């Protein structure tokens, strides 16, 4: 009889921990050796089958699987909380960029309302403002991409930890 940690969409969680002899995956029976230690989680993977070519994600007892599942939930939840802080920093940066962009756009408005006598000065200032706006918009675009990508992955992991259960396989 073997047990595994199943996700809500019918896949399986594989929990990888640091062991004394290096990096190793938790396989059948290994949990017994880990129970009284505090081995850090190295990775958590989602795989389609409880046993595949590279990993065995099964446990000899239901209790072992339950313990690992709880550890995984705590670990993922803790990282997702850290992620919220990073997003808050991104929000602060995006607000700053928004302010810089508005300021640059006001400068553009003033430039076009100014005297047309100084052609050379006009071109120089227009070039500088163009570069500045380009930098600001590139940074905004990058922030948006990072936030959207990370958010998508964070949602997936949150969905995972909500729907876990221990099953016999």
């Amino acid at each position, binding site marked *: 009889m073997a047990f595994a940690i199943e996700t809500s969409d019918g896949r399986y969680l594989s929990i990888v921990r640091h062991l004394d002899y290096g990096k190793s995956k938790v396989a059948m029976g290994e949990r017994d050796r880990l129970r009284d230690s505090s081995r850090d989680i190295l990775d958590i993977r989602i795989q389609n089958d409880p046993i595949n070519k590279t990993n065995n994600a099964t446990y000899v007892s239901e209790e072992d699987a339950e313990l690992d599942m709880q550890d995984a939930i705590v670990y993922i939840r803790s990282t997702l909380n*850290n992620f919220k802080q990073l997003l808050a920093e991104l*929000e602060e940066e*995006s*607000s700053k960029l*928004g302010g810089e962009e508005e300021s640059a756009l006001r400068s553009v408005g003033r430039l076009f309302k100014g005297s047309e006598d100084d052609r050379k000065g006009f071109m120089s200032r227009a070039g500088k403002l163009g570069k500045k706006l380009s930098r600001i918009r590139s940074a905004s675009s990058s922030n948006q991409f990072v936030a959207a990508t990370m*958010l998508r*992955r*964070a949602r997936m992991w*949150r969905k995972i930890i*909500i729907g876990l259960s221990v099953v016999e396989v």
Partner: protein
Amino acid sequence: MSRITVRQLKRLIKEAISEQLEMADVEEDDESFADFVSDLEELEMGGL
């Protein structure tokens, strides 16, 4: 990109911070949490 980009970003961030997050239909094959954490660390260091 325009100022709309910044607004969109703010909206995304507020969604993430909210406890009322509804899970999107996201599917990844053989996803590794360590990869996600590694990307977060890079983000923290301004690497992304």
